[in-house]
């Protein structure tokens, strides 16, 4: 593996609309295993932010503990990051968002971090519809402690040591739809043509966007019998549709066949165009999404793509009716009621 990141930049790198080249969105050299799915997801995040022309300092990236939670070091090096404690990224992100509603929040977590130790916070951050993108890099195992089964490991999946997982899996995407997440998608680290538009849509969504990205662990869970191996996922994947992300300023130029396509308009005016739709599926219908996922599961398939989107929901700031100006920028003058008001309060206690 490399241990020094090349500083070479192609002199003709293309600048995006806000004047940054793609390498401005990169981070430090990854210390994950060669071939780790997580690195592909990091690369997709870099690509999505570059293409969306997000100024890097407008993003805050937060994570918990585990291999996945290390990745924020490896993308968006010009953004503030916070690698917190195990399973608690949602609460940190909630507080950060309450303080400054104007930034874009990317939370990165793993299946251990989310489905086990952090399951409670994961559920509650969805209930509150916090405006953030929550990515689970899902490999079905605890990589950093050498391969124990996680709570998303499928029933019967065989781990590297050869034992079958005796417990049913927690399906995080299903849980997200049930608990009120307003944008839910599943993808595969090896499918960047699907992952990048999904990431762009999630980042453009106002409210809680959840992305469950299956991301094989090459070292501990890529063996025969594992349902999270590259081979298994490739063989069993089925997409709800093909995707194109269309930014607000652009028009859809491609014509799609009637009845087999639809568009989801996101809060900022951008569109997610869905082609080759699965029959009988409507991305804005919660029940249809659940049925479709259930059906795929019964057929032994891994359903990927956009699963559900509700684009006109109220986020936590709407519910709390906070002022438009970020709370962290309110001045003492706006916050401190002063001594005259205090004298009035004193009088009420005499």
């Amino acid at each position, binding site marked *: 593996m490399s241990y020094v990141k090349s500083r070479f930049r192609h002199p003709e790198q293309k600048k995006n609309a806000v004047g940054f080249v793609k390498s*401005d969105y990169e981070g430090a050299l990854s210390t994950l295993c060669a071939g780790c799915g997580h690195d592909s997801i990091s690369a997709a995040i870099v690509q999505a932010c570059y293409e969306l022309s997000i100024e890097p300092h407008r993003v805050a990236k937060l994570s918990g503990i585990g291999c996945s939670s290390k990745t924020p070091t490896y993308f968006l090096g010009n953004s503030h990051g*916070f690698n917190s404690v195990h399973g608690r990224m949602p609460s940190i992100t909630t*507080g950060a968002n309450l303080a400054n509603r104007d930034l874009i929040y990317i939370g990165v977590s793993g299946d251990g971090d989310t489905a086990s130790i952090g399951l409670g*916070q994961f559920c509650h951050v969805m209930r509150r519809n916090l405006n953030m993108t929550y990515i689970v890099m899902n490999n079905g195992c605890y990589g950093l402690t050498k391969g124990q089964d996680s709570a998303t490991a499928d029933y019967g999946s065989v781990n590297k040591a050869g034992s079958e997982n005796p417990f049913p899996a927690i399906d995080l995407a299903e849980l997200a739809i049930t608990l009120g997440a307003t944008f839910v998608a599943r993808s595969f680290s090896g499918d960047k043509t699907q992952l990048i538009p999904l990431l762009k849509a999630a980042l453009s969504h106002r409210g809680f966007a959840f992305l469950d990205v299956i991301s094989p662990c090459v070292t501990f869970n890529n063996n025969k019998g594992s349902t999270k191996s590259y081979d298994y996922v490739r063989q069993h994947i089925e997409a709800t549709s093909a995707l194109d992300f269309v930014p607000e300023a652009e028009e859809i130029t491609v014509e799609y066949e009637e009845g087999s396509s639809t568009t989801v308009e996101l809060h900022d005016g951008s569109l997610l165009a869905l082609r080759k739709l699965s029959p009988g599926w409507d991305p804005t219908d919660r029940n249809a999404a659940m049925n479709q996922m259930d059906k795929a599961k019964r057929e032994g398939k891994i359903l990927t793509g956009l699963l559900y989107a509700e684009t006109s929901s109220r986020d936590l700031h709407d519910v709390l009716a906070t002022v438009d100006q970020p709370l962290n920028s309110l001045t003492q003058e706006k916050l*401190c*009621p002063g001594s005259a008001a205090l004298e009035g*309060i004193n009088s009420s206690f005499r």
Partner: protein
Amino acid sequence: MIHARRVNDMVIRFANVNGTGSASANELFARAIFRMGIPISSKNIFPSNIQGLPTWFEIRVNDKGYVGRREAIDLIVGVNPQTYARDVASIRPGGYFVYDNTKRLHPDLIREDIRYIGIPMMKLCMDNYEVPRHQQLFKNIVYVGALSVLLNVDLEVVRQLIREMFSKNEKLVPPNFKALELGATYARNNFEYPLDIHVERREATGDQIMIDGNTATALGAIYAGATVAAWYPITPSTSVVNAFEKYCKKLRTDPATGKKRYAIVQAEDELAAIGMVIGANWNGARAFTSTSGAGVSLMTEFLGLAYFAEIPLVLVNVQRGGPSTGMPTRTQQSDILLCAYASHGDTKHVLLFPSSPAEAFELTATAFDLAERLQTPVIVMSDLDLGMNQHLSPPLTWDDARVYDRGKVLSREDLEEMKEFGRYLDVDGDGICYRTLPGTHPTKGAFFTRGTSRDEYARYTEDGPAYVRNVNRLQKKWETAKQLVPEPKLFQSANRSRCGLVWFGTTGYAALEAIDLLESEGVYLDVMQIRAFPFNDTVARFFATHQEVFVVEQNRDGQFRSLLINELNLAPQQVLSVLHYDGMPIPADTIVAQVKDHLARIGIPDTPSQKLSVG
């Protein structure tokens, strides 16, 4: 038996059933005495229950201003037959038992050395009110009326308080007046009044207020500019956030849009609550949470993160009886060591110890400045007695010239001018480094916050020397903190005794009375109130210049004593514990008795020429 006439010096206790509306009637009675210019304190002794279990309310009236708890009860209003036996037994000889004689008192409850005043509270209500709920509620006002006559409380003051209480629902005023008069008339017609213990108007309260510590704490947070509060319900801290919300609605609603300049989130648990507070502070908002001991236990992992990653936060710990669920509705100061060293690894936290509502206000506001200056958690160590009881307190004060200390935060312009930014570079040599907030600058100042070891540029490292440099710098910051935390308060201009006495927090009410009691018996001690941890040089000097020092605290293990011995490297035999931990606030007599026990062994200090006045 000859009964001495006692004016403005008594303890009255109400024995009620929880959930019957007695609390507001009892508070009404207490406030009426306060409005007559007489210093009082009140203690709500309540069960962990919503309805049905016994509850007591105690008022101490003392025009010398001693408002700590006193154990000898002069008069009990008994309206809960469940506790009659216990109530009757707790009255001092010569005291009174005022009870509802609608039913006859059992002969076993008759003591020869106390006096009985029977008032047919229930009968008066049955005869005058039809709705059962009213019969129940107005019974409380009936005894307030009777007691006002017996103890010489000005009924017009009581009526005025009732008018204020129902200013938004005026139709409730006449039936309350009627109940008040029913009780008063019965007392006038059937007893000699006032009793030999009673109150008389004074001008002894000045501009003081009667307020609970949790409200004062919440107001401190508002005045300090806190915008985010995340919390999880727990007795006795719940009313901190309740009060924060109540006053934010009034003081922090944008007049033009009706939108809020604050955000309050009831979290899913204490872990999430403090997590949100860390996230908000990391992002530059002043944020706090409040909890009690059990909550602090859950928050310890995050406290370690905030300490190590150097993120400001304010945590209000309204302590209750521990360990575990302990006595959730009783008071203690038993989270000292938990909070001082919360979390694994080498951690220590700044603690502030308010002793009154005015100090709760002041120290909470100070906590936000300290947290941001030091980039570390600051824990406000309140307790149930301070938090939930109404205390006589100096008025809350705010200096309009005071400017928030937001600490070392770099602006976009600062970053533009800087050659090099390293989040953990000790540029000023005080152990406190410069931080940046997310979103400040497009290309400069971004860094990675982490709970793992890191170098001066916030890069992950497992390099031993880099780790040592970092934790040694944190130790240097701790030394800086000693210069910044509130000074202890010394009650003498110079030492005058071989022995000292140290107190902190709500122990002060009783400690100051105990000092006067001891002086009246010829025992003179030097006194120090400690208001913060880490202990600074003034604290160290007090121990260095006294042979023996009593440390008064409300826990079993002498936790504060341990902290002093450990941090100041004191000889254990020099530091003598005065302890009280039954869940009730410490009484002065307990302190006097334990100090005298120690002195019997170590010898009474010489009488100094200069006397101390603490009152």
